[in-house]
């Protein structure tokens, strides 16, 4: 039986007074443990969608349910939905400790909860620093700490990695991944698509307040939907690639040391590797050759009316244990 979605949005519309139609009949369901990647150009309605889902805005049409209850009937939505808005808006004239104490009191979080959040986000060494003196990455962590104080099962993160360097982004995404591992449902809006592709279990592309998807009839898609049926193989030496090419099905060279192969449909893709083992040809990388989310997003933007060409139906993903 499918789990009840923590966030269930149906035909949501939002028309700002004297403004454009920000969202047009958008539907979405996010279940516990899922990380939903919300993608779209600036002004597509991502932040509006998140603010509606957090109960900060009232929709002009459609419905929002959180944990099976209509959002409008929940007296304090913050106990169920944690929103990290963009800009994050932290009090720069407080210390980290004071900031956490203030929101801890507001959320009636016991001191152990604050301590747990501080430990989880490694904020301990910064407790007595002024928020203003923190780097952008640590300020974002602090904003995330504020969201986690509520212990809400649904987290809405609007551009959590904006302005962060590579290392801070990796740390933050690791935090997000472990939060989802704890059973939370997380919606992450981001423009940094490679990272989003690494952590999200499903994606949705909003353009002009509507979903745009490469899969006809479906608003959202998963990484498996992006699989093309082709696989990428990298070898330690270009000579190995040359030796391996005739042995593999439909192999084509994509780099001096790499091949793209297309195993026959219906057979486990790992079977295609048997000739390599037999010929004792070493390889260093074997993975589904999916299009990047960047590429897909640009394709979706460039084809305003029809979705881009679809990949063939994906094979079941193999176990990569040789």
């Amino acid at each position, binding site marked *: 039986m499918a789990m009840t979605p923590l966030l269930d949005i149906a035909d949501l519309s939002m028309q700002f007074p004297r403004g454009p139609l920000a969202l047009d009949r958008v539907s979405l369901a996010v279940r516990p443990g899922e990380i939903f990647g919300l993608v779209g150009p600036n002004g597509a309605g991502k932040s509006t969608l998140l*603010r509606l889902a957090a109960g900060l805005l009232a929709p002009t049409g459609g419905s929002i349910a959180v944990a099976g209850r209509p959002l409008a009937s929940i007296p304090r939505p913050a106990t169920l939905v944690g*929103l990290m*808005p963009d800009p994050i808006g932290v*009090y*720069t004239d407080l210390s980290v400790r004071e900031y956490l104490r*203030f929101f801890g009191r*507001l959320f009636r979080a016991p001191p152990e909860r604050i301590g747990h959040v501080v430990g989880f986000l490694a904020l301990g060494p910064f407790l007595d620093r002024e928020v203003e003196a923190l780097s952008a990455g640590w300020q974002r962590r602090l904003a995330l700490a504020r969201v986690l104080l509520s212990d809400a099962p649904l987290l809405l993160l609007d551009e959590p990695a904006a302005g962060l360097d590579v290392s801070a982004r990796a740390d933050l995404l690791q935090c997000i991944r472990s939060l989802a591992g704890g059973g939370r449902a997380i919606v992450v809006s981001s423009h940094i698509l490679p990272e989003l592709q690494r952590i999200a279990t499903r994606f949705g592309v909003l353009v002009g307040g509507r979903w745009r998807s490469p899969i006809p009839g479906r608003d959202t898609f998963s990484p498996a939907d992006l699989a093309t049926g082709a696989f990428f193989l990298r070898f330690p030496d270009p000579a190995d690639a040359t030796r391996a090419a005739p042995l593999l099905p439909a192999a084509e060279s994509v780099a001096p040391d790499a091949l793209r192969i297309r195993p026959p449909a219906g057979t486990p893709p790992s079977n295609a590797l048997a000739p390599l083992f037999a010929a004792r040809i070493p390889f260093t990388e074997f993975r589904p050759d999916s299009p990047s989310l960047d590429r897909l997003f640009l394709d979706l933007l460039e084809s305003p009316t029809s979705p881009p060409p679809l990949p063939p139906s994906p094979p079941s993903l193999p176990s990569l244990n040789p």
Partner: protein
Amino acid sequence: MIAPFVYLDLHQRQRQRSLLVLRIVLLAILAVFTIGTLVIPLFGSDFTNPSSLSDVLVHVFLVLQGVVMFMLAPFGAADRLSRESEQRTLPALLNSPASPASIFFGKLAGAFVFDLFLWSFFLPFIAVNALFCTATPGYIAGMALANLATGFYLSLVALSVSARSKRALHAFLRLGVAYLVWFVFFPILFGILAAIVAAATSGGSEPEFLTVLCFAHNPIAIQIGLLGLFGALSPPWAIAYALAIPVLWLLLSWILVRLALRALVRAP
């Protein structure tokens, strides 16, 4: 839900340098007045006994306290909510168990603590002089409490203006314009009206209802009453004046709170 906002307000104000300057300025003013009044007898003035000196000083300090509450208390509250918009911290507050009403009244409580701080600065000076002066304790206590009430009332007005402003500067400017209309334009208007009515009536003096109308809306209406207006009015109009003050305060406060809460709900 209000206590966390008082905590926030105290810790934010603690870091404001302007507050330190304010403390120094207030102490300097109090010191100048105290020393000045004590020095006057040295130059042959009539103030040669503690009672005369204290009579002057207690009034000076009560008026100073009133001016500070009138001028500084609302401007201390004027940026409290607009700064939340400016710093983009309002969505984080609204995504908390605090309702817009809790946020508003929490901020108001924070502003009241600031008002108490300003107000209490004058208390030791007033108390010392109250021991020697001829004014009754009731009058002194009434004036001091009226000053506190004025500060709190004007803080509420300022906070409401703040809730409807996206930037602190806009809030200060709007409050300045409101002050100009309320305390300059209105009295001039009422003065002209009173003069017209007085000229039209054979007695040559304005009717008492106009006096009530002129002063009852003013945040220092209680002080005006205590300073002599209650005694100058006939008993029915004195009662009307005394009743009109809380009614007008409550009515304006209710309207302003409603407007502020509506602005907070619409803020995101």
